[in-house]
């Protein structure tokens, strides 16, 4: 019973948070709604006994991605975050229609048709087991991921700084 209440509350918070994040005009409000969505999802992970994933979700999404988004908004938009122009693209109706159609005609029937397992097995969540798995079969994946993150770091710095360097060169030429 407690689990069901928790699930419904978290599900409603998650959907509302995501919707607000997507439709809100003020971008800062949008980012904070997105944080609420991430937090609700972390709660759902906890409910599914994936506690390490929940911690990583909070650490990465709220602690890092959210702050990064805030910085990007502060650097690109007006500081108030209010977007004065029309917020939706020209074909917004078709976008809405496509999203609803994907849900109603593509995802929902697939879920309802599928033969899903009903019962859960009792599990003992263990960070140690996760760590061992990362070291034994998935070590190459981990290394590739580390490489990817390094590349992303260098790439992000290069892309974000590139314009300035180019500008300097341009002004030197001129």
């Amino acid at each position, binding site marked *: 019973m407690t689990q069901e209440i928790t699930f419904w509350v978290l599900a409603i918070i998650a959907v509302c948070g995501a919707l607000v994040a997507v439709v809100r005009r003020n971008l800062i409000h949008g980012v904070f709604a997105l944080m609420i969505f991430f937090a609700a999802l972390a709660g759902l992970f906890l409910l599914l006994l994936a506690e390490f994933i929940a*911690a990583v979700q909070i650490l990465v999404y709220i602690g*890092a991605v959210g702050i990064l988004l805030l910085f990007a908004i502060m650097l690109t938009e007006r500081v108030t975050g209010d977007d004065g122009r029309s917020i939706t693209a020209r074909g917004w109706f078709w976008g809405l229609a496509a999203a609803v159609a994907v849900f109603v005609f593509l995802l929902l029937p697939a879920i309802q048709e599928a033969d899903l397992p009903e019962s859960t097995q009792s599990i003992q969540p263990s960070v140690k087991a996760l760590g061992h798995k990362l070291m034994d079969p998935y070590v190459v994946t981990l290394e590739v991921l580390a490489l990817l993150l390094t590349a992303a770091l260098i790439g992000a710095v290069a892309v974000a700084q590139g314009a300035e360097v180019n500008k300097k060169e341009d002004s030197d030429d001129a």
Partner: protein
Amino acid sequence: MSFELVVAILIATVPLLAIFPSLFALTTWLERKALARIQNRRGPNKVGVPCTRIGLFGLGQPAADGIKMLFKEDIVPKGADRLFHLLAPILALIPAMLVLCFLPLDFSFLAVWDESVAKDIKAVQGFALDGAVIFFFAITGINTLSVFMAGWASRNKYSLLGGMRAIAQMISYEIPLVLSAVVVVMMVGSLNAKEIADAQVGWNWFVFTPWGLAAFIIFFIAALAETNRSPFDLPEAESELIAGYFTEYSGFKFALFFLGEYISMFAISGLAAVLFLGGGEGPGVAGYPWLAVVWFLAKIFSLIFVMIWLRGTLPRLRVDQLMAFAWKFLLPLSILNILVAGFAHFIPQGNVVAKVAVWMVSLGILYAAAKGLNGLSRAEVKPREYKYAQ
């Protein structure tokens, strides 16, 4: 949910909610008193028992301040975002209170009447989670958001500047903070706070190993920055930003910020005590389990006193110095520390001589690296050049 489970949850959480806010009141008094004594002043010494002239060393000051804060007018600036302005102090307090449950303060001794309730308490306490330490860091990170929220919602350029400074600082110092904790996690092989504390039983505190000492120093410095304590209190630099992100806060919202800041100070000192100072370990714990809580709080308090002492000693850093210190000094040093700890752990240490040799070598490497990094990142100090004089 059974009634006994509810009782267990209450026993596991209520002491935390009772102890730490009252310690907060005591700490504000201690801080003001200690700072005053360091600066040759007396500090609060008038407020004591109401309606009398009994001073009680000014111990009534926190209560008087609290009452004053409650009755102050709550001002919201005209252009402010009212919702976020209200939410920011709450969001500052909640994560700070939340992380307290990941400190291994075991209150199961309170359930003297029933063994099963004591067992339940052990099960529901936050530090029983397998990844308690990583949860701690994750939830501490939310604090940053509240700082931004306060700075942005105030519609004040100083607040926004303070908020952005705070975010940059907190993100930068979170990395050495986590990396220095990784050393301990590596040594114990667990992210569970209880297991980490238990691994240090019998004065095997991690602070007494070379890598543990280095990690403790890095952790403590990063913790100072993370909780915006002097000398890293740039986000609230009074002389530059007129208090930074909470410039526009008054009354009880301001008090909430204050409370949140102190609670996160307790929390991070508590984590330092768990990781490096043996948690609740101390003489007499085996016989009386409640002594563990006392020892733990004593360790937290000694760390807090060092924080206050440092605040009375050191001047504030500049922004560029702050960033350079995090990225050019603490970060490489903490990564090197992980390497040193790993090697030292796997070098066979049969006898005492080998062990001492390994310790001396690793201490030497760490010190030399710190010295070298310090030399590399130190800016050339020149006397001030005057433009017009001479």
